């Protein structure tokens, strides 16, 4: 069993599908771009002009998080469920292929595809006047945090596909969860959230990660608290580890089972 060739095979196939499927490109990349163009006109009309660049910067970060979530929590399970509906897993189960290595290929696809989309959103943000206070030292940290967000999202996506029966169910449940997380911890700075919703942010690695990136790139004052505290950090890393392990287990057991 050649581990690297299995990972590569799965990655190349998934990447081709993700870049050729208009629905995936539309929901993962075009939708955040659309929001990036429209939301400032709709929601930020009363923001003073001197704060607009940082506000746009915050929006770009939120859109990148949305992009990662759409890719991993909706499109990844949708793609896996479509393969399951077409009996690909029966075929794979009859071959000397390991479920985890095959899954790693798909996970790498999510990383690469999200990175590609994020660059587009970032560049568009610069064109629209987004501003950041980032130094070179912050970039590896930001990339690391974005990876944690991606891994958590992938874990959630794998759990979804283990328990849903069809492609449309997997994609729709994914969309619902993306919207839930987005509006309850990413769409608005922490300081703007109602008191009741703030605890949810601290137990959601995706929200914590988004706030960490925003704190680094825009400033703690904008976010309204310091997400780099030991409790949030520990919770984020622990829950991410747990979710990805559970997701991989569920994927291996329930997707590969007829």
């Amino acid at each position, binding site marked *: 069993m050649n581990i690297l060739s299995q990972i590569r095979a799965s990655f190349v196939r998934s990447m081709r599908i993700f870049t050729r499927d208009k629905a995936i490109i539309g929901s993962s990349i075009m939708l955040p771009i659309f929001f990036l163009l429209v939301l400032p006109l709709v929601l930020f009309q009363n923001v003073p002009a001197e704060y607009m660049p940082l506000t746009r910067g915050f929006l770009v970060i939120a859109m990148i998080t949305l992009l990662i979530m759409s890719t991993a929590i909706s499109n990844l399970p949708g793609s896996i469920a479509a393969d399951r509906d077409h009996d690909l897993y029966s*075929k794979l*189960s009859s071959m000397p292929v390991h479920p985890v290595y095959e899954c790693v290929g798909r996970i790498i696809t999510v990383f690469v595809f999200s990175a590609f989309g994020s660059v587009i959103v970032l560049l568009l943000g610069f064109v629209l006047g987004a501003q950041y206070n980032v130094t070179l030292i912050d970039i590896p940290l930001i990339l690391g945090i974005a990876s944690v967000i991606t891994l958590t999202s992938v874990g959630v996506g794998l759990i979804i596909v283990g328990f849903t029966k069809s492609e449309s169910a997997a994609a729709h449940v994914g969309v619902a969860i993306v919207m839930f997380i987005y509006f309850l911890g990413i769409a608005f700075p922490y300081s703007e959230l109602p008191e009741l919703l703030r605890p949810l942010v601290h137990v959601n690695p995706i929200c914590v990660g988004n706030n960490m990136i925003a704190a680094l790139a825009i400033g703690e004052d904008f976010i309204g608290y310091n997400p780099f505290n030991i409790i949030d950090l520990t919770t984020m890393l622990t829950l991410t580890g747990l979710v990805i392990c559970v997701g991989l287990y569920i994927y291996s057991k329930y997707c590969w089972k007829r």
Partner: protein
Amino acid sequence: MKSSSTIVLEAHEITKSYNEKRVLDNFSLEISSSDFFVLMGPNGSGKSTLMSILAGTNPMDRGKVMILGHDISHDELKARQHIGYVPQQHFCSDFLTGRENLQYFADLLGLSKSQAKKRIPQLLQMMGLEDDADRNVREYSGGMKKKLEVATALLGDAQILFLDEPSTGLDPNARKEFLMLLKSINEQGTAILLVTHIGEDAEIANRVGFMLEGRIVAEGTPQKLKEMSGVKSSIILDVIPRTDELLLLLGGISNDCIVIERNESIELSCEEPNEMVPLIMDKLQRSGFNMRSIETQPPSLEDIFYSLTACPIGGEVA
């Protein structure tokens, strides 16, 4: 060419139940490398469950499956290297070309770049897909998709192909072409186990098994099964005028013939139809009847299945 005496598959007393309903009942089977074995049975007889167990994708409750001496339950990696499985559904991605789909499976199997570069064009040519290799699979016909799927099963070192109802959805010409392709693969030394409910699929097999309620109830060559069943061949006549006198005349030709009047024709079920045809033609001519057409029709395997099991193959097991 491999030795015809190589036993590729040994299945011993496979038992499988779903929710206390026994789907496979002490099922046993042995297949050698020269075998083209077709398992026929109605829906619900356990064919697909059996296929999934033999291919190693579904655990059995009890029993043993050996592929070239490797136990599918305990030595699964080695066993799976010798299996080529083609499930019923089309599993190749519509977003990829034929060549890309084959490359995917070649990489999964660990074929080197040079091995894949040699093997993929060979398989595309064998399947007659070389001109369509770089088109998206969504543009392929059902027959082309099935051929591509068989090609994926032959990429590695498959000594036996498992095909689950492969001709479902194919038109008669595509089905014929596909079965001839399987026959040629078998003649090159790869054993084939195919499950179907379509009798025509079994005509080219060298071994046919009838499956009902989780076990094989009859087995043999198509010819032997026809002889076992006692079902006779038919002569189909189109004669005018259609009168009672005509039916009496035909009934009196031989005690072994049964006359059945149908809407468009008259059917005679006879032991030796080829010997009866000149006799019938002569009798009809002498009696002044106008015979518009006459043809012989051997019994179908579906007819034989029904005669041996009292269960229509197009039906469903309760």
